[in-house]
């Protein structure tokens, strides 16, 4: 019996999967990944609201099984580089749902950015976006450094290099960047704190536990690119704290600047952390000589770092028409208890239990581990530089918590949701999540071994030790893969408008292919988004009104109410006067799913009575294009 116990203990002391079975598991994982991509491709739909509406029923179970296999490999004795490659593949899979399932990615900002990238790609725009340079040099400089220009420049350079279409190149740009580089940076960042490569690999996988990390990696918009470069700058700040050379400093500056030109929010947070890092490094040098002065300097630097973002938002009005200000309006009508709750818990105060588990728990666990590490000071004895890095991350995390509360409670008319700060927080928490989960896994393994030992002494009193050990050892991979799958399910919206349809894209492509000369299109915002993606935003030769342009909305409403040749001529002339253009062709597009019931049939019959020429019919007669050409 003792020999059997020894044998079992020896076998269980090894990693989760025996090396001989590893190749089989890896092959199985590869097969499951291919199957997941295939199921995702099968779910592609022409008319869709959310990814879950059309998702293949087998996808989620297959995705869960794929993740389970990956977690098992992560806990195995496989080489770290191989594990990292497998994590990257999984990460790419998690971020391409919108691009693969929807005909034109998620609606809105991503499509507008594609329209702007199209302008650069087709050489329509000179000296960057917008089309017409600003009169004020200050505003022009601000525009150059807005994320859209950097993203367009990078996107177009890569698109030209790879020789791919700008439409697909843009849609896959951020999901691929995120899928490839975020796990790598998470791995490297965790390596700063832990020599154990398995924890670092676990961290690269655990970034996917945060729904924010899934969803921001799916849109090709400047802020998403900003997050990628922010994460890189965070890693290089940590390297700067632990090295003495110029190289780390240079890299820190380069990546902070890259995050600034990608998106001002990412850049400002990045530079706030950079300031904090430089002060912490000075604090470490000076604290022996003048401890009080060093502490005051650190405190002041923390306050400046915290105030950098709110100040930037206030001063943005100098160069851009924004009206952000400090105010107590958000606190009006709240009870004392609610205000205290918002202060202490932040965004979690009003969230549901499942939202708290999905959005708040990961970062909370990360913070707890960070504080424990800092308090125990175990690292301090091992390496001073690691302690400094830890102190920096803790102060950075604290800075984000304070900034979030300032934005949430004391600032009004923000140009973006304060929840965007959560992504920065989650990036910082990921390594510590990995540390605690690895600790739990190790504890479970130890407990399992102990139980097996006891069971072998009393074999008839308990269930088979092999069954028990297998169950215990599979528990952590099961829980983690379940959490990651739930995170992916939670991250992608379950409600949404009808996305840009395949026949809308087809219609605007048809117009572009079959029109000679300058034209203007009157359509709803969905047609405008589709048009922007194919011909570029505000292209003077193929003009689609902006969805927020009151003139365009008024003209389209007029066309809908009274669709006739006279209204079309009038609308085209008004457009030519307003935009100082000379379009000779006008199109009016109307589509059934975007109108209230019965309205579509009325518009079509009235347009035909009003002598409007039907130019094309798409999507099983759901979309009509009417055309007018000015005669010479």
């Amino acid at each position, binding site marked *: 019996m003792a020999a059997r116990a020894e044998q079992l203990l020896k076998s269980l002391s090894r990693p989760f999967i025996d090396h001989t079975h590893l190749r089989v598991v890896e092959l199985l994982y590869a097969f499951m990944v291919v199957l997941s991509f295939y199921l995702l491709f099968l779910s592609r739909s022409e008319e869709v609201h959310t990814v879950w509406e059309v998702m293949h029923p087998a996808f989620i179970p297959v995705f869960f099984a794929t993740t389970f296999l990956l977690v098992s490999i992560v806990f195995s004795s496989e080489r*770290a*580089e191989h594990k*990292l*490659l497998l994590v990257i593949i999984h990460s790419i899979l998690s971020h391409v749902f919108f691009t693969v399932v929807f005909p034109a990615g998620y609606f809105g900002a991503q499509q507008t950015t594609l329209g702007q990238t199209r302008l*650069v*790609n087709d*050489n329509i*725009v*000179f*000296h*960057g976006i917008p089309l017409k340079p600003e009169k004020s040099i200050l505003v022009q400089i601000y525009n*150059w450094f807005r994320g859209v*220009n*950097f993203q*367009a*420049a*990078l996107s*177009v*350079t*890569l698109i*030209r*290099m*790879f*020789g*791919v279409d700008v439409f697909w190149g843009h849609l896959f740009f951020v999901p691929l*960047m995120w899928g*490839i*580089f975020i796990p*790598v940076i998470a*791995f*490297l960042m965790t*390596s*700063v704190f832990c020599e154990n490569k398995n924890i670092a690999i676990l961290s690269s996988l655990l970034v996917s536990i945060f729904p924010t990390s899934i969803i921001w990696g799916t849109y090709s918009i400047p802020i998403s690119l900003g997050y990628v*470069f922010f994460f*890189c700058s965070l890693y290089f700040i940590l*390297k700067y704290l*632990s*090295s*003495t*050379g*110029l*190289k*780390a400093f240079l*890299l820190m500056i*380069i*990546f902070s*600047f*890259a995050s600034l*030109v990608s998106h001002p929010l990412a850049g400002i947070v990045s530079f706030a952390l950079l300031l904090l890092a430089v002060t912490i490094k000075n604090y470490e040098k000076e604290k022996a000589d003048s401890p009080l002065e060093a502490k005051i300097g650190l405190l002041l630097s923390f306050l400046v770092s915290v105030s950098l973002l709110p100040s930037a938002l206030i001063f943005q009005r100098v160069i851009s028409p924004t009206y952000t200000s400090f105010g107590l309006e958000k606190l009006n009508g709240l009870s004392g208890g609610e205000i205290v709750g918002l202060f202490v818990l932040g965004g979690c105060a009003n969230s549901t239990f499942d939202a708290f588990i999905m959005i708040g728990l990961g970062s909370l666990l990360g913070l707890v581990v960070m504080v424990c590490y800092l308090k125990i000071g175990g690292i301090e004895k091992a*390496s001073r*530089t*690691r302690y400094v890095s830890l102190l920096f991350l803790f102060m950075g995390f604290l800075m984000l918590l304070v900034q979030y509360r300032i934005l949430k409670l004391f600032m009004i008319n923000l140009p973006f949701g304060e929840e965007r700060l959560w992504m920065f927080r989650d990036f910082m928490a990921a390594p510590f999540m990995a540390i605690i989960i690895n600790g739990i896994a190790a504890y479970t393994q130890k407990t399992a071994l102990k139980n097996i030992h006891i069971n072998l002494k009393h074999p008839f009193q308990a269930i088979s030790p092999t069954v028990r050990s297998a169950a215990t050892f599979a528990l952590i991979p099961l829980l983690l893969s379940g959490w990651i799958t739930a995170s992916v399910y939670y991250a992608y919206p379950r409600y949404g408008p009808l996305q840009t349809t395949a026949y809308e894209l087809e219609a605007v492509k048809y117009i572009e292919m079959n029109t000679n000369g300058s034209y203007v299109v009157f359509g709803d915002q969905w047609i405008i988004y589709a048009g922007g993606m194919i011909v570029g935003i505000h292209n003077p030769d193929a003009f689609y009104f902006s969805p927020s342009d009151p003139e365009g909305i008024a003209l389209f409403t007029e066309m809908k109410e009274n669709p006739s040749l006279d209204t079309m001529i009038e609308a085209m002339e008004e457009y030519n006067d307003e935009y100082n253009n000379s379009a000779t062709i006008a199109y009016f597009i109307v589509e059934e799913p975007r109108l209230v019931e019965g309205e579509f049939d009325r518009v079509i019959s009235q347009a035909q009575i009003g002598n409007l020429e039907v130019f094309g019919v798409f999507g099983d007669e759901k979309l009509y294009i009417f055309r007018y050409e000015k005669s010479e």
Partner: protein
Amino acid sequence: MRNKIAFGKVEETVLHDKNFLFTMLSYIMVLLVFINVSVVHSPVMGIAASFLYFLINAIFLGNVFFEKEAPLSRFMLGSLLLIVFLGLIGLTVMMIYNLDAIRSAIVLCIVSTLSSLMYKMTEYSISIELTTNTSHV
């Protein structure tokens, strides 16, 4: 292990080139990209040329800035830095005029030259400060 050796050999070959052969190869890739954008319009040709371009220049940059990292991390960080350089120089060229096929090729040439020069500088220890970086991590 075989993969590691294979990549190590590629890296070694690129780095031990004394006659700027791989820098020239990188320029040839830029020429191929330009021909592809202007005439051929083939993603296969574009991906093949870009892959080689990335491989050469990411190896150069990786060895300038991240020589102490493991090979895969070094290559990934080198690629990331290459992407940042492409973006920043592309942005500058776009601000000056625009980013048509010729100017995109110029961006690629500038980045390639920069990567190669930086590597040679580090190799011959021209920049003393850059090479004295010591990481305690």
